[in-house]
């Protein structure tokens, strides 16, 4: 739906000139940071998992649920106290990909729009970022499960 499909020679010439001055993203450094922070968050998740296994009646398989909920609770504190956006600037995907990032996207939108009221503001905007994850998660899961179930029914699998 773009303005036009291919850039004109003038546009191309300028874009090349501009590229020379454009600051490059420090991809390697960003990846290292994402790895370290992302890994660290997952390690905390593992510690919380063991906590639920030791002190509650959760098995390795069922402890995932309370772990995720706890991580999102922590994410709420960090988001509310204005820390998570700074972690995000440092870590990039390292703090965006874990569920804490999912929590952050819901929580940040919720607190951002409280000035527009609880119903239209918080309620209406809570999922403005995370909604896409829900949509594609649910829809792809539906397709995957449907295909697998049909294949099983037809005896292919």
């Amino acid at each position: 739906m773009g303005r036009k499909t291919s850039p004109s020679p003038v546009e191309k010439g300028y874009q090349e000139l501009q590229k020379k001055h454009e600051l490059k993203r420090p991809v390697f450094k960003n990846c290292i940071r994402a790895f370290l922070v992302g890994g660290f968050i997952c390690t905390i998740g593992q510690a919380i998992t063991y906590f639920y296994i030791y002190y509650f009646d959760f098995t390795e398989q069922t402890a995932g649920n309370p772990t995720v909920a706890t991580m999102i609770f922590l994410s709420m504190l960090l988001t509310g106290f204005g820390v998570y956006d700074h972690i995000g600037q440092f870590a990039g995907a390292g703090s965006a990909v874990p569920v804490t990032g999912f929590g952050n996207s819901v929580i940040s939108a919720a607190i951002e729009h409280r000035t527009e009221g609880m119903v239209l503001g918080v309620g209406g905007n809570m999922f403005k970022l995370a909604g896409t994850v829900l949509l594609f998660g649910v829809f792809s899961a539906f397709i995957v499960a449907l295909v697998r179930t049909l294949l099983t029914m037809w005896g292919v699998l």
Partner: protein
Amino acid sequence: MFPMFFWAFVVGGLICVIGQLMFDVAKLTPGHTMSILVVSGAVLDGFGLYEPLVDFAGAGATVPITSFGNSLAHGALMEAEKHGLVGVLTGMFEVTSSGISAAIVFGFIAALVFKPKG
């Protein structure tokens, strides 16, 4: 227990690096990146590959957003085994509900308690 922590760190970190590459190299928005990761999780579960990863890496596989797609698909598949095709729809949130409900509940609490710091 130590190998578990180690592999959780490594696998979780690597999934985040994949996300970072989607940000920086493919120049995708966070929304696009998260959607692709979630879909990948669901597809991997369709091939029965995500569960072994969870067994191997623990939180390294359950904490990244990919696990969300995995558990949605997993819930749907489990219900489908019991109830046939209807289960595909009804079982979707069987396993995953905690992440979404926690995000909703804590998001609302946060909206009551916190103000954005800017």
